[in-house]
């Protein structure tokens, strides 16, 4: 007896990926949908949580992947690449452009970077008239002028702005805002300042002024805006962040023969993403660690950069070990161009009269995002210093709601999350999880890439995407004992779990630690008291709903009912040739892992009039052997029961494809067999009863509906 609360209540824990994502995207949900081949539904979930997933799909630094618990088992799930797969698969579908103006108050967004884009999007959805002011001739902020085209194609950014415009956002390009007062005078009731951090930091060494030395962000901006600065043959890049790597790889593409990155710390301390560094190395960029330039001399149109070697000393305030120069280790480096990419700061017009914090950034209240001036909010790199795209999107979203609060004279209340975040996997659990190698998306080979600015990373194929998505452990969406009172402590769950997760706690009660449960569903189906449920409501309801659907709207005589694994078969298309309605009399019930199919469900299928029932698992792709084992036992039990009623054992079968078996062939044989048995029984019944076959086979004729 399940109460309504538990039938629909989301009792999952927040997975670590979602917790780490600044946008708190429902990663577990969309990855699972991809794994089932339900890409459009996955895309819907993605777009509900992220207004510009196409951008993140290319350049997100994926804190979700760093937090992904699969990484404790083998490698993290390639979430970003999967998101890209879904976004590219869906194209323009699932894109929301509905927005109507319901409010009078105009809001100005200063800066068209990701924070500004997100803020404009959500403000527009809330019904506000929004204007984005962008100083450059092209919108997008760092997306447009910072990130190179081979990482984020221009069209993608442009498409998003087209959409914002279609939504009714006003975009004023080549319009530099120099005074916030002016904006207020123009009638804007609130302003979101998100001008980014584009001012390159200086090394502060002798010789830095002058030809041949260029600021990294400026360099990238020029290239992105279409210029091709000549760099000469030997280029050096000072810095260790993504800007430095972007600059180095861009230099290669502009024809530099030798590019070296000079970083004052070691490879472990480098903040740039590993994937970027790896690709840069593949393309031929050299990395000089523990090196810093001391001064720059010029000799015959070339730069003579005197560098000094460093060693790592005590940690500084950022927690990283401070580099300390090694006495007497100076050496010269002959370069044509030196790109300085050691960080950026915002260029804040004085007239804004905003309070400044550390690193020339704007100071804001962390909850309301308000600055010292009423009605003026700020976010993005301008507040945090150079950060990531997804953080900017997240703050832009928050800012929209904070502005909404402000304009409604509401006190901003920080959102409280009631659900817990999932904890760590224990080594014992990790040891039991089958290792599956990560499928990385394909990349262009380095020789091809460096010739031009074409996108480096390609998108997954269907099979690759599904295979990778299946590695997700579904953290926090496992099983729980929901009725302590009806649990008889029979220890069945403890004994049948392939991962040895359920255990007796200190007071002798059985509990299923949510952090360790792998959501296989075996204990749920085996619990003799039926007190274990899956935390995710869709998982709980799936089979019952499908059977109800079959009962009400299905054919009056579904000859064969098949419970098919959504992951391996239905999703990847082997069985998708068999449709939902009767195609050759086979009615498919898709299940997200057939391990959840209980013996009673199988009986129910017969009860609904099926002459034959099969279960098709995903076979050798299943991440555990026990699923097939338990299904086999349940099927045996049903077979025995049927036998006692005089129904032949061949009427129920388990298919676990693999070992070169062709499932469709097997199914055809099974169908024929069942049809034969049905006819034979008809003959017997006719001789015995002389009655309508439908009645004789357990379908009350009043249930039949016209198809």
């Amino acid at each position, binding site marked *: 007896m399940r109460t309504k609360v538990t039938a629909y209540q989301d009792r999952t824990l927040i997975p670590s990926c979602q917790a780490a994502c600044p946008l708190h995207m429902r990663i577990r949900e969309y990855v699972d949908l991809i794994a089932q081949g339900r890409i459009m539904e996955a895309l819907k979930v993605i777009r509900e949580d992220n207004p510009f997933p196409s951008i993140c799909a290319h350049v997100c630094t994926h804190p979700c992947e760093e937090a992904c618990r699969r990484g404790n088992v083998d490698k993290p799930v390639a979430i970003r690449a999967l998101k890209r797969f879904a976004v590219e698969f869906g194209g323009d579908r699932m894109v929301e452009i509905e927005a109507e103006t319901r409010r009078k108050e105009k809001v100005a967004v200063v800066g068209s970077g990701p924070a500004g884009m997100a803020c404009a999007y959500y403000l527009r959805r809330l019904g506000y008239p929004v204007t984005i002011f962008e100083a450059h001739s092209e919108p997008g902020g760092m997306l447009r002028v910072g990130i190179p085209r081979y990482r984020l194609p221009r069209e993608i950014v442009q498409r998003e702005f087209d959409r914002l415009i279609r939504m009714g956002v006003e975009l004023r390009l080549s319009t530099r805002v120099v005074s916030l007062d002016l904006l207020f005078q123009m009638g804007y009731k609130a302003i979101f300042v998100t001008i980014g951090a584009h001012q390159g930091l200086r090394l502060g060494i002798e010789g830095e002024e002058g030809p041949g030395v260029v600021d990294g962000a400026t360099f990238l901006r020029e290239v992105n805006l279409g210029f091709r600065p000549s760099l000469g043959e030997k280029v050096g890049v000072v810095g260790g962040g993504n800007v430095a790597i972007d600059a180095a790889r861009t230099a290669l593409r502009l024809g530099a023969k030798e590019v070296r990155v000079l970083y004052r710390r070691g490879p472990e301390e480098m903040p740039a993403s590993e994937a970027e560094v790896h690709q840069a190395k593949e393309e031929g960029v050299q990395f000089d660690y523990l090196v810093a330039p001391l001064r720059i001399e010029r000799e015959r149109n070339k730069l003579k950069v005197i560098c000094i070697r460093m060693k790592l000393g005590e940690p500084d305030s950022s927690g990283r070990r401070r580099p300390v120069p090694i006495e007497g280790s100076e050496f010269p480096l002959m370069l044509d161009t030196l790109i300085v990419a050691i960080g950026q700061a915002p260029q804040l017009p004085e007239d804004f009269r905003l309070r400044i914090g550390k690193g020339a950034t704007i100071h804001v209240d962390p909850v309301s995002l308000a600055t010292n001036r009423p009605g003026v909010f700020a976010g993005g790199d301008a507040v945090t210093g150079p950060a990531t795209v997804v953080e900017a999107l997240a703050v832009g979203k928050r800012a929209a709601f904070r502005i909404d609060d402000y304009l409604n004279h509401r006190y901003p209340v920080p959102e409280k999350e009631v659900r817990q975040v999932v904890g760590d996997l224990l080594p014992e659990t990790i040891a039991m999880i089958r290792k599956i190698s990560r499928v990385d998306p394909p990349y262009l080979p380095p020789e091809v890439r460096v010739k031009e600015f074409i996108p480096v990373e390609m998108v997954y194929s269907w099979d690759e995407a599904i295979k990778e998505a299946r590695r997700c452990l579904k953290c926090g969406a496992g099983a729980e004992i929901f009725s302590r*009172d009806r649990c*008889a402590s*029979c220890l069945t769950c403890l004994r049948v779990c392939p991962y040895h997760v359920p255990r007796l706690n200190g007071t002798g009660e059985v509990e299923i630690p949510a952090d360790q449960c792998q959501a296989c569903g075996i204990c749920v189906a085996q619990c*003799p*008291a039926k007190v274990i449920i899956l935390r995710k409501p869709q998982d709980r309801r799936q089979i019952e709903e499908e059977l109800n659907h079959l009962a009400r709207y299905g054919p009056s005589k579904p000859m064969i009912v098949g419970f098919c694994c959504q992951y391996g078969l239905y999703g990847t298309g082997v069985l998708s040739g068999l449709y939902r309605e009767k195609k050759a009399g086979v009615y498919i019930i898709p299940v997200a892992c057939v391990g959840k199919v209980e013996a009673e469900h199988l*009986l129910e299928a017969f009860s609904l009039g099926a002459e034959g029932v099969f279960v098709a698992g995903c076979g050798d792709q299943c991440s555990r052997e026990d699923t097939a084992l338990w299904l086999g036992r349940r099927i045996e*039990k049903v077979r025995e029961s049927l036998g006692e*009623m005089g129904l032949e054992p061949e009427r129920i079968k388990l298919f676990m494809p693999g070992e070169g078996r062709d499932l469709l062939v097997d199914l055809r044989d099974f169908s024929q067999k069942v049809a034969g048995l049905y006819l034979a029984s008809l003959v017997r019944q006719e001789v015995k009863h002389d009655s309508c076959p439908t009645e004789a086979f*357990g379908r009350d004729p009043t249930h039949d509906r016209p198809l």
Partner: protein
Amino acid sequence: MIVAQQKPLEEILRMIDPYERVMILGCGTCMTVCGAGGEREVAFLQKALEIAGRRQEEKHTFIPYTLKRQCDPEFLDLLTDRIEDVDAILTLGCGIGVQALAERFPDLPILPGVDTSFLGMAREWGVWDERCAACGHCLLGETAGICPITRCAKGILNGPCAGPKGGKCEVDGERDCAWVLIYRRLERLGQLDKMRRFYPPRNFERPKRILRRT
């Protein structure tokens, strides 16, 4: 744990044949633990009986319900509202439950759905073995905690007989000879002299009612 096995479907069908509205009553304690009559078994049996019933053109309506226990009158009180239109109760409780129901509802036929088999324990999932004969004169202290009554096929107290081969009982090659087990464990405990003692014939008298004072 009381351990039982569900009766064959055929037998159950015959038992319920004369009745139209049948309550299938599960038990949430022993029968859940041994997998013979908990809530899941009630659901499964209901479906199976429905299918079987229709095939034989029988009209039954089944009312499934599970009580935490059937062997206490207070639990049975919970049924009074639910049995108004019920013609018979097919209970998946042990023999105790069947009798408790029959006593409490003397006008209702109570049908046993399981065969109560023994007092035993699970060795691993799905394997239950008899352990206790409820003989009323526990002498497990003398036999190193191994019961010669349940585990020796002949139930003798001065064992072994000449039957064991390879430490296995003459009756069932899979079954250990209890007395060989007792010997080994007494040896391990350094108490072999217990086995050298003469054990007089069993006293088969035991109480049929037990009273508690506090």
